[in-house]
């Protein structure tokens, strides 16, 4: 591990040029945010020399702004910092809870939702929660920023749509309409600090007569990437998100899942559990929307 090098650019342009130069020289570069995945990986299975590009010194990746129509959350905001933001907690309780589920207090001092997405694990807990909130990735590119919906960002296990010359600046998330609630639940065999066996996020919006007019459902850890499950959302739209609608969404999630059997759970088990999690998260999201 003698040839690691390090850059801590202070502007987006500088970061892009560092990445472009590295790519031109045929050298590997990797973007570093909180490092809770990157540093562990470089000490174990992936210890090839590379340039580490710390993006925590950029104003944009550290920005949190709450606008009239949308919210921006910078990619390097640590989960611990995010969860101290009461306004965001009121707006997106499910998203903030998904970040709060990952790791210990110490890990949350460093880990970010941007890093969780860029690590692109099938089991990344914040990914379904970002998807149900219609979050859009803002990606720095030398031709200007480009935007990609979170559900289209991850392309496979550990892979995503960004080139080696790009990096994630942050997320644009539409401000939730009135009577909207979100929730994310995962199943792990213990109560703290484990990787999801299955996870489900739900966001629902109701009209003033109590009918669901908008729904998004996403499931994690049951396919190579987190999935947006349109059939489950359609089972909720036009209903009061009552028990029978939730049962239909549950069935849609189980049907959409294509899990693997590993030490965390079997195909059959994950398929069952992800449906149950959808139903329970849907109940919480509904109650939050109507509270």
């Amino acid at each position, binding site marked *: *591990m*003698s040839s*690691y*090098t*390090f850059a*801590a650019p202070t502007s987006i342009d500088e970061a892009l040029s560092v990445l472009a130069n590295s790519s031109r020289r045929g050298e590997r570069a990797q973007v*570093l945010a909180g*490092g*809770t995945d990157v*540093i*562990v990986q*470089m*000490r*174990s299975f992936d210890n090839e020399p590379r340039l*580490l590009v*710390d993006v*925590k010194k950029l104003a944009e990746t550290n920005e949190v702004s709450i606008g009239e129509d949308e919210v921006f959350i910078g990619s390097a905001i*640590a989960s*611990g*910092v995010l969860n101290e933001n009461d306004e965001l907690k009121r707006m997106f309780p499910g998203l903030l809870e998904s970040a709060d589920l990952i*790791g*210990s*207090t*110490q*890990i949350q*001092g*460093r880990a970010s939702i941007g890093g969780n997405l860029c690590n692109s694990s099938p089991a990344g807990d914040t990914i379904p929660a970002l998807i149900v909130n219609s979050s859009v990735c803002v990606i720095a590119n030398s031709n200007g920023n480009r935007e990609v919906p979170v559900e289209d960002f991850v392309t496979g296990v550990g892979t995503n749509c960004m080139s080696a010359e790009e990096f994630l600046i942050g997320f644009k998330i539409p401000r939730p309409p009135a009577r909207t609630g979100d929730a994310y639940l995962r199943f792990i065999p213990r109560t*703290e*600090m484990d990787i999801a066996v299955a996870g489900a996020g739900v966001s629902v919006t109701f009209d003033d007569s109590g009918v669901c007019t908008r729904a998004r459902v996403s499931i994690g850890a049951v396919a190579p990437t987190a999935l947006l499950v349109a059939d489950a959302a359609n089972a909720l739209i036009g209903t009061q998100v009552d028990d029978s609608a939730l049962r239909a969404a549950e069935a849609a999630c189980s049907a959409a899942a294509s899990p693997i059997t590993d030490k965390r759970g079997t195909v059959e088990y994950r398929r069952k559990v992800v449906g149950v999690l959808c139903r329970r998260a849907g109940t919480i999201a509904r109650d939050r929307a109507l509270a």
Partner: protein
Amino acid sequence: MKKVHVSTTVNGQPEEALCEVHQSLLDLLRDELGLTGTKEGCGTGDCGACTVLLDGRLVCSCLVLGVEAEGKEVTTIEGIADPDRLHVVQQKFLEHAALQCGICTPGFIVAAKALLDKNPDPDETTIRYWLAGNLCRCTGYDKIVRAVQDAAQELAQSS
């Protein structure tokens, strides 16, 4: 092997060190600055033995690069006590025998003090969740939790 110059502040003291990029903040503290109070347990952010404060926030120093400490403020176990007496959390760990082998103790104390600085009156559940990232294979945790509860009580009485 190219070394990077790092200027940082540790326990209020400005420090300079030369550091290789792959070295962790834990390596920097122990091997370059001689601050061996911070312990290495797992090296993968699971056990919390290497817990320090980085700009006031709890982190595992094994999961921070030494070069990332540039311009930052680090607080380690060596910065917890007053010059002439132990911090109340340290004192209560002694009184409650909340340690056996001691490897996890610096991390527990740094983390517990950070909790009490943020929340002076935590309930038992809050203490247990806050310290969930600190593993102890000797004491079974009850003595640690009682030490933290007692420290909170004493701090409340003295304030």
